[in-house]
């Protein structure tokens, strides 16, 4: 892994590196530098498998973090590439020509986070939700609870207990005496 990182550092501008495990490293890269790096990893270094493509909503920094996790099956190691894109006008280059499976991830991200991937096949079609008219539901400024309360009929009489307090009150003598 060390030699691979040294190797990559020479060829590509890499951001901060987090070594999670000996066989798992996360690297932050620039938006424009992602594609050549992914192509290099896939074709030269043996990272042939795109494990996942997912997003994190850093609402405080006004950023979306996209994570591309690729896996080298032969040597049993993973690299996660992190790309930060601005939250407003969130858009990213599509990689469906490198891995066709990425198209599905990109459709999901488009629907759930509202991140655009122009050129990706069927990316603007509905994926899981049907007839969704609100904010993309995985964005952190989308208030799920308020939405559910407003959209769906509600039956009164529901109680919620904190499990720890509830069991303590039921199981201990002081709790039962109360």
């Amino acid at each position, binding site marked *: 892994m060390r030699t691979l990182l040294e190797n990559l550092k020479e060829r590509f501008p890499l951001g901060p590196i987090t070594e999670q495990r000996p066989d798992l490293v996360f690297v932050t890269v620039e938006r424009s530098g992602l594609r050549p790096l992914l192509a290099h990893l896939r074709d030269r270094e043996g990272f042939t498998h795109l494990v996942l493509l997912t997003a994190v909503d850093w609402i405080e920094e006004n950023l979306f973090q996209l994570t591309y996790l690729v896996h080298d099956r032969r040597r049993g190691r993973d690299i996660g590439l992190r790309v930060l894109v601005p939250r407003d006008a969130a858009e990213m280059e599509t990689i469906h020509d490198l891995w066709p499976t990425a198209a599905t991830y990109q459709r999901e991200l488009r629907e759930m986070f509202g991140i655009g991937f122009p050129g990706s096949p069927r990316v603007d079609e509905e994926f*899981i*939700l*049907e007839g969704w008219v609100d904010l993309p539901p995985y964005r952190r400024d989308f208030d*799920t609870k308020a939405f559910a309360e407003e959209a*769906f009929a509600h039956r009164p009489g529901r109680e919620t207990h904190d499990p720890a307090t509830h069991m303590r009150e039921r199981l201990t003598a002081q709790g039962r005496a109360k």
Partner: protein
Amino acid sequence: MQQDDVVEPRVPVKDELKKRTVKGPDGFEFEVDPIHDYYCDARPEVRPGSYLKIVEDLFNWARSESLWILGFGTGCGAIEMRPLMTPRFDAYRYGIQWRPTPRQANLFVISGYLSVKTLKRVIRSYEQMQNPKYVVGLGSCTVNGGMYWDSYNTIKKLDEYLPVDVYVTGCMPRPEALLAGFEELKRIIRAGKGEGANLYAKNFDWYKANQKRVIHDWDMPDYNW
């Protein structure tokens, strides 16, 4: 129950469902209106009972002894159906069996959480079932949302959208609880109170308004018999 205004769909209808002119392979041009051509969307009617109470009682006894369930698993609760229909719990000895199509079924078991997307299919299937028909809400999700009470995509109160005869609570209820629920449903039917289909026909506008409030891409006829 109050009457609400009919809610217009907030999402435009898909292109393939729009009314349009199609040219056939033989050169004929004809108009196609997919939503209205293939369905009878006449409103459901209230079915009057028999003229004699004793006859109606006989009918109700017969109905209660042959509950045919539509094999439609909406959520995780559908997993409880497998032990029920196989020898361990063997619901068939109670006159309960599973059928593959809505036309052959008269009992709809809403098994577990119901997302908005599934609700659309459930409504279509329910409306295609023959009268008299019954609905059992299975699991806490159908009662008040259960663990999905704050979900953006799951309805919380089933009887807003369909007339429910019996609720079986639990997360998940055991097959024994379901059998008890079916016995309860049988009692209700024998007492002549299993009037879900008539309730649906009577309050049709109210049910439709509720359904259209959550289903934004309403692209089907109002009643697809």
